[in-house]
């Protein structure tokens, strides 16, 4: 997919809000690197504005947000709003009750992962497929 995109698939990984539990985000970041992606690891305690600005400056193809603080109903839509009309898909992982998933999807989130989705390789395949679909290229490439 990176070949078809013209440049290596680039993902931003970060944690919005007051949440210092970075283990999950780091696992995702390292696995994404091992899957051949360029990973901008932004760290913790980020504001939605910081995340949006970084995503645009860095020219990432996809944003992965990790959130375990319970503030996802406020922070995730705020990130989507800060991104404005930029067409960068967002996936979210963390402690997210199933009942909140429809609201996040309605806000434009492409996928939501919880600790039930422990197969990180599957998440990576999903992310590659998501970027390929948004850019109209084949995952076989």
């Amino acid at each position: 997919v990176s070949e078809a995109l013209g440049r290596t698939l680039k993902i931003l990984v970060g944690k919005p809000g007051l949440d210092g539990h970075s283990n999950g985000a780091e696992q995702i970041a390292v696995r994404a690197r091992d899957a051949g992606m360029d990973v901008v690891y932004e760290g913790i305690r980020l504001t939605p504005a910081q995340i949006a600005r970084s995503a645009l400056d860095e020219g990432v193809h996809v944003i992965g947000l990790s959130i375990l603080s319970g503030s996802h109903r406020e922070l995730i839509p705020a990130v989507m709003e800060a991104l404005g009309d930029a067409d960068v898909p967002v996936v979210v992982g963390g402690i997210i009750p199933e009942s909140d998933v429809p609201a996040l999807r309605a806000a434009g989130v492409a996928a939501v992962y919880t600790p039930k989705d422990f197969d990180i390789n599957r998440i990576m395949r999903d992310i590659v497929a998501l970027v390929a679909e948004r850019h109209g290229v084949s995952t076989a490439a």
Partner: protein
Amino acid sequence: VIDVSAAPAILNLLENRARREEAAQLVREAGDGAGHIIGITGPPGSGKSTLLSALAKAWRAGGRTVAILAVDPSSKRSGGALLGDRARIEHDPADRGLFIRSMAAGERLGGLAPATRAAATVLAAAFDVVVIETVGVGQSETEVAEIADTVAVVVPPAAGDALQYMKAGIMEVPDVIVATKADLGATPGLETLGVPVVPTSPPAGVGELIAALDAHRASLDLVQTRLRARRAGALADFVSEYGESGLRALGGRRAARAFLSEQDPSSDGPTLYGLLVQRRWSAGVSQDPLRE
């Protein structure tokens, strides 16, 4: 054509391997930007990112616009990269005058990413200061010296004795030496290298460092510096595309440099590159001893 808000789109274009014609066109249009291109290099963990965070803050406070190209290594195994410099550089998301872009070095070993040279050249047309932070380098990754107007080498305390500095390599390139973590002591012998040594422990020493960088830039013949950078960049692009066999077809590195120095000094990088490629064809691939 080129302003600070266009920076993300410019980088997306320059990094795209499928849009090289457009990229070359953009480099041509940008010409020699007036921005100060500064290379910051040094071993891993020596304090490059911390220093850069303090420098960026001071430059912005002084009203200068800043673009940072932060290069990190790629995994040899997967080709992927974990780019962590951005997390260490403080930035205000509402400030358009500070642009940070993380770049993966890919398979290149010189400390730069494939698009770094072109990016620095183009951004220098829009920003007052363009900083290239190289991957943490060892003793021989000195490519940044070919593109930057001013190179600052970061040396942490107790980094070895004078013998380390008599070896060729990274200590051949500095215009300014930054002795970081100065509160923890110094590395002896640095002052014998004949370039300014600035001890820092941010925020202490940052003002002095900016003054030293500015003084170096003021002492430069910028036209000559940029001409050298264009020639070196064209040759590096040629070697990364055609490798050693391409270089042999030109009669070796020395002959290639001589050829470049005979070309019109006003030629831009993509034109010089094109001339090298053309010369390779006219020299004929028969000069490749592996084929004979």
